């Protein structure tokens, strides 16, 4: 389980989908980084990602990592948002995970991502939901 401190530092990107936009070349990085991989720029402005997009690569995890035993099979997808940014997210609300297809329109919703057992912290972030 990740530490409360690391999770806390990442709240802006996890809770509000804040990304870093390179002021030199305009590339949007999510999660934000220190150096732009495209132009090696080091100056960024904060932008908020759009919450709509489509599935680029769906997959179903059948051997779950610890903490996800009750959510198996677990659908996960690479989603391309409407501004072109791609991210890997869990997909929520699938009655049948195998129905998830390339090109499916999705939007990102605020969901509980993980919980540290019965007594630990709850971790929140975004998952994709089919429109």
């Amino acid at each position, binding site marked *: 389980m990740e530490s409360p401190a690391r999770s806390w530092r990442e709240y802006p990107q996890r809770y509000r989908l804040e990304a870093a936009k390179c002021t030199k070349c305009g590339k949007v990085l999510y999660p934000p980084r220190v150096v732009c991989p495209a132009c090696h720029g080091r100056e960024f402005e904060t932008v908020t990602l759009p919450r709509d997009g489509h599935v680029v690569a769906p997959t179903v995890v059948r051997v779950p990592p610890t903490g996800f035993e009750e959510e198996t099979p677990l659908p996960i997808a690479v989603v391309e948002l409407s501004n072109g940014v791609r991210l890997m997210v869990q997909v929520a609300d699938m009655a049948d995970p195998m129905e998830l297809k390339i090109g499916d329109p999705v939007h990102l919703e605020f969901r*509980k991502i993980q919980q540290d057992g019965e007594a630990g912290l*709850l971790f929140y972030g975004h998952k994709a939901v089919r429109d």
Partner: protein
Amino acid sequence: MSVGIVGYGSYIPRRRIKLEEIAKVWGADAPSFKRGLQLHEKSVPGKDEDTITMAVEAGRRALIRSGGIDPATIGAMYIGSESHPYAVKPSGTVVAEALGITPQAHVGDLEFACKAGTESMYLAHSLVKAGEVRYAFGIGADTSQGAPGNALEYSTAAGAAAFIFGSDPERMLAEVVETYSWTTDTPDFWRRSYMHYPRHGSRYTGEPAYFRHVMNSAKGILEKAGLKPEDLAFAVFHQPNGKFPLRVGKRLGFTMEQMEPGWLSPWLGNTYSGASPIGTTAVFDVARPGDLVLLTSFGSGAGSDSFIFRMTDRITEVQNLAPLTRMQLDNNKIYIDYGTYAKLRGKIRMGE
């Protein structure tokens, strides 16, 4: 200065369980339950949906309908629920952080059985009216639970509604005409610390609790505002099941036409702190400029908050900017069986 609602939104989970599916497991007679309580199905939260997540989504929809309020200008946010995910640690901080309201804001969690949602609205409205804050969020959200096999298991459901209060005339959707509250100490329903499920005073609960408080609160606000039932376009009451709100409304002199648009419980269940607030969002979705809307909540313990709203010209411009409440109720449903329900609701103990 007139104060009112400048943005509203609701969130209903997609999962549903039919009443027959619950009755089957406990050997109960589904047709008599359906007739008696006027319930058909109820919403069920996924493993990843709770009071916090539903409040965030309802809050985002309210922000969209506000026409671009900068969240940083929202000075207060209250979230009423009897199913806050943490026993100690506020839901409100997560919700406020996710909505971008932090850090300069007064944030608090409220509890008062099923009326914590309207309590949050009451405080948000009052702070704006007092001039303490420019905008304030009032949210009601719950993922309530009934003990397996208990009558409550047929109705306890999940959902959220969020309202932004403000006073700028150009953003106003619904002006608050009047507020009124009626409260007594009535032990009709309770849950002690560390207990998973609540207890209720069984048959005792109807008359002295729900009916007495809702009747007095609704009558009180109508009298205070100098209005009669026929002056209102819509009336929304707390809906612990399908039957109670219609019965109380008829006793007060309201017609089915006034109550039907906000009467969601037969297909939604009882969303506790979300119940009458979500019903109000369904009414706002179809209301026309000039319409007067009555909202009367009920919380066991016991009390009833009432509001009368007057819809402005802007309401019809914002209705379709975010998902309509009836659309969420009627579409994209995922029906689950009792086994899945028991797993999702944590009724199965996992191995250590």
